[in-house]
């Protein structure tokens, strides 16, 4: 939407994120930043500006870029029944009953159920769920989507592939409603595919409103692939330009032909080289602290990985591989070294997603290869430090996770993401987490942490020429905070509020009054 009159943002601490330059004010005309400066020079715009925003001394930053985000599933989950806090069958029942009462006869989709949290130490079967809801399908996903639990209605409502591996039967050979393995994969695919795109659009639009309130103007959408749904990726692809913020699609597929046909320049995102710490499936070079004998596992042979990475190089596709454990990182790096050696092609800014347990050797090799690390600092806030998940799973090796400072010192670019909805879509919490890493040696400065969610994010998707910094000529993706982030005590960063979010010159969210 073109408009002739500019918007002035003044009285701010505008961190351009380019060469350490700061401004006091910026001017936005149409969709771009048209001027920026310090002192009273802004006054020349007071008369002609259409909109004037007083930042009230708060920090003004480039719009946040969240580099790892499951847009469609996070949006759908936001409308689902959260069972992560259920501690017993009775808790599940109460939540299901409430949902059934709120929307009678509507499908209920529950998420986040963890058998380990339940007093009964197992997942409920259909007879348990039937006690609380009999007249609508109830479809519950376990916390990592590996298992589904259905009530009898849902078992009869959805097309269930009973001949596939993963159907649990009772002593009478009747399905119990607990579905795992291949049957679960196919069931999820059927259920997710059955969601119409109109619902996706409505849900995503609604969800993005909350994302905008956190100052996010661009997300890297990790869509499709295992445990998700390719229809999500196709939806995002078709929705380009129709959503409130910019979405850079990372299609989690290994189908290079398809990516070429879609004329996408990147591939992957959630191509799982290994699993998760939570499920003890990330590939480690040592045994899990709480599961002796288990070192997790790789999902590819080295040869398979080499071939695929090489093909990505040959097709000049930017590749994003999901790697968590050190053995997975090793495999990915080996494959990149192989592909580089075979093709000689550089400059594609390939990414490793998560990279939670790299060694110094890994970091140095990644630097040589020009890889970008796409990391989620909020993991440390949730799982890092003594007594939390990282220590439970990794023992003393929890001190090695997410070594942001070391990575930056070695010259590897880190772009920050939330992995939403694994952690909340909240870049300020991400910045807080990187600055307050439980292991002091891994902490970074506030400025470096902001870079992860701004200019580094833009670099990681080849968009640094148009966003990621506050510079004249760049897109006016701007976020205004309620205070000066650089002067805020480290442990209070998470309390900072976003006051205004502007995307390409349009104010999408504003809590600041206009003079």
């Amino acid at each position, binding site marked *: 939407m073109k408009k002739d009159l500019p918007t002035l943002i003044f009285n701010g601490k505008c961190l351009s994120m380019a060469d350490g330059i700061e401004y006091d004010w910026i001017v936005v005309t149409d969709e771009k930043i048209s001027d920026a400066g310090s002192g009273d020079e802004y006054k020349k715009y007071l008369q002609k500006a259409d909109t004037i925003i007083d930042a009230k001394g708060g920090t003004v930053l480039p719009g946040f870029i969240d580099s790892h985000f499951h847009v469609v599933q996070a949006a759908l989950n936001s409308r689902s029944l959260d069972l992560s806090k259920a501690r017993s069958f009775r808790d599940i029942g109460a939540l299901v009953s409430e949902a059934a009462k709120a929307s009678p006869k509507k499908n209920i989709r529950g998420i986040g159920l963890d058998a380990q949290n339940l007093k009964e130490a197992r997942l409920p079967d259909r007879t348990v769920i039937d006690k609380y809801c009999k007249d609508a399908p109830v479809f519950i996903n376990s916390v990592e989507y590996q298992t589904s639990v259905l009530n009898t209605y849902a078992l009869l409502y959805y097309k269930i592939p009973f001949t596939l591996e993963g159907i649990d039967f009772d002593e009478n050979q009747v399905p119990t409603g607990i579905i795992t393995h291949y049957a679960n*994969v196919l069931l999820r695919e059927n259920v997710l595919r059955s969601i119409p795109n109109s619902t996706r659009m409505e849900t995503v639009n609604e969800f993005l409103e909350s994302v905008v309130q956190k100052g996010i103007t661009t997300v890297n959408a990790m869509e499709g692939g295992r445990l998700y749904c390719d229809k999500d990726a196709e939806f995002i692809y078709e929705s380009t330009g129709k959503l409130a913020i910019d979405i850079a699609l990372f299609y989690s597929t290994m189908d290079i032909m398809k990516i070429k046909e879609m004329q996408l320049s990147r591939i992957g995102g959630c191509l799982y080289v290994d699993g998760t710490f939570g499920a003890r499936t990330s590939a480690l070079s040592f045994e899990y602290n709480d599961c002796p004998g288990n070192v997790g596992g790789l999902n590819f042979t080295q040869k398979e990985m080499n071939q695929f990475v090489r093909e990505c190089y040959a097709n000049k596709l930017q590749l994003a591989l999901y790697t968590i454990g050190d053995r997975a990182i090793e495999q990915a790096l080996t494959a990149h070294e192989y592909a580089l050696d075979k093709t000689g092609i550089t400059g594609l800014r390939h990414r490793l997603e998560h990279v939670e347990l790299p060694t110094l050797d890994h970091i140095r090799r990644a630097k040589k290869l020009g890889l970008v690390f796409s990391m989620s600092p909020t993991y440390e806030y949730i799982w890092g430090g003594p007594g939390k998940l990282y220590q439970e799973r990794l023992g003393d090796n929890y001190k090695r996770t997410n070594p942001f400072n070391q990575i930056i010192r070695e010259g590897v670019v880190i772009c920050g993401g939330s992995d939403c909805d694994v952690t909340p879509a909240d870049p300020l919490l991400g910045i807080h987490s990187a600055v307050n890493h439980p292991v002091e040696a891994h902490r970074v400065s506030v400025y470096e942490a902001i870079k992860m969610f701004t200019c580094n994010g833009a670099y990681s998707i080849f968009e640094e020429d148009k966003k990621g910094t506050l510079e004249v000529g760049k897109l006016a993706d701007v976020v205004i905070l309620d205070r000066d982030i650089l002067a805020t005590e480290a442990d209070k960063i998470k309390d900072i509020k976003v006051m205004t979010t502007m995307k390409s010159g349009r104010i999408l969210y504003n809590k600041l009054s206009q003079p």
Partner: protein
Amino acid sequence: MLSINMLGQVNISYNGVSIADRLSTKLVAMICLLVLNSDREMSRERLSAYLWPDSDEEAARYNMRYNLWKVKKLIPSDAKGQSFILVSKDSCRINQQYKFQCDKLCIDSYDSHGQKSIEKLLQLKELFKGDFLEGFYLKNCNEFNEIILFERVVCQTKHIEIMKQLAQLYEEEDRSEEELQILHEMTAMEPYNENFACRILSIYKKTGNRAAAINYYREFESKLRRELNIAPNNDLKILYREVTEDLCGKEDGYPGKTTGEKKKLVIRSRCMKDVDYFWAAEVVGALLKAADQKYLMELNLNYILDLSYIQNELLLSYEKYVSKEHREVGQVPAVRIVNAFLKFLSHACAIYKLDIHIDNPGDMDSSSAKILKHIEACASGSIHIYKC
């Protein structure tokens, strides 16, 4: 004639005219229950428990009476004046003299061990219009709902069995196109079944449709990766390689594991008494020279690294075919060397028959001698040892 279709959307028709819309859900359920138990009587009490579990005795009895009357009204007697349902004071049942057609009973009469014909199997296949009692659910009738679930499992299992037999008969009659069609339908039902995929690929290969074979394999591989994050099994990989190598005009492609005879390799080896694992290392080295190195390098990297402790040629091959970057090999415990050697041989035997000649067995080192003893004890048909 009365026709009852329970697969897919339930339909009950008489002389081709549907009467389903005049039947309540409970009445349809009652008919289904009686048909499922058509070889025996069902007590009214039992039927009531299935269909009106929450009603008191009198209400249940009334419902039963009313519905039985309704059946009598809607389903006329046959030419001989026989009623569809025989009703007595305490029980009722389907009249076995009454002629009617029911898809479910046809399917139940199928005997997987009996004699089959393509025609008969095709007729049965046509009956599967959908799931058993599709769209059916009776609130609070737990036992009845369980019957639906149970029967859905039974029907899906029979469906796939019938398809398998049909594919088998087509194969026996060398009707590849029809076999292919059935296999594709089976794959739609069990999309991750690698045996089905293997058969499809074999047919494409046999019929010379290489482009289709390659496309099919890639699609299948991509599906496994996308949805399960696994690679196809070795059989499928080997078969695919055969297809692609044929395409490249190579004459020395992999001998098929799944089709035809395995290729025989003659391995000559020598022993050296005081050098640990010398004979085993000789075998590995000779195999590397005789077999397809690319294939051998498909062995898990950990085994290759362990085995390279005694035979450095392995690392050189690995570097040539897989990656120049690999981990350093430190001290490897004996048990891992032995295990890796056996895995290496077993991997080779998947596609080759090995005739291993030992020139001077009397000089064999003790570690190798133990391995040899183990191999001989296991007596694999793919390995023959000749001590010269």
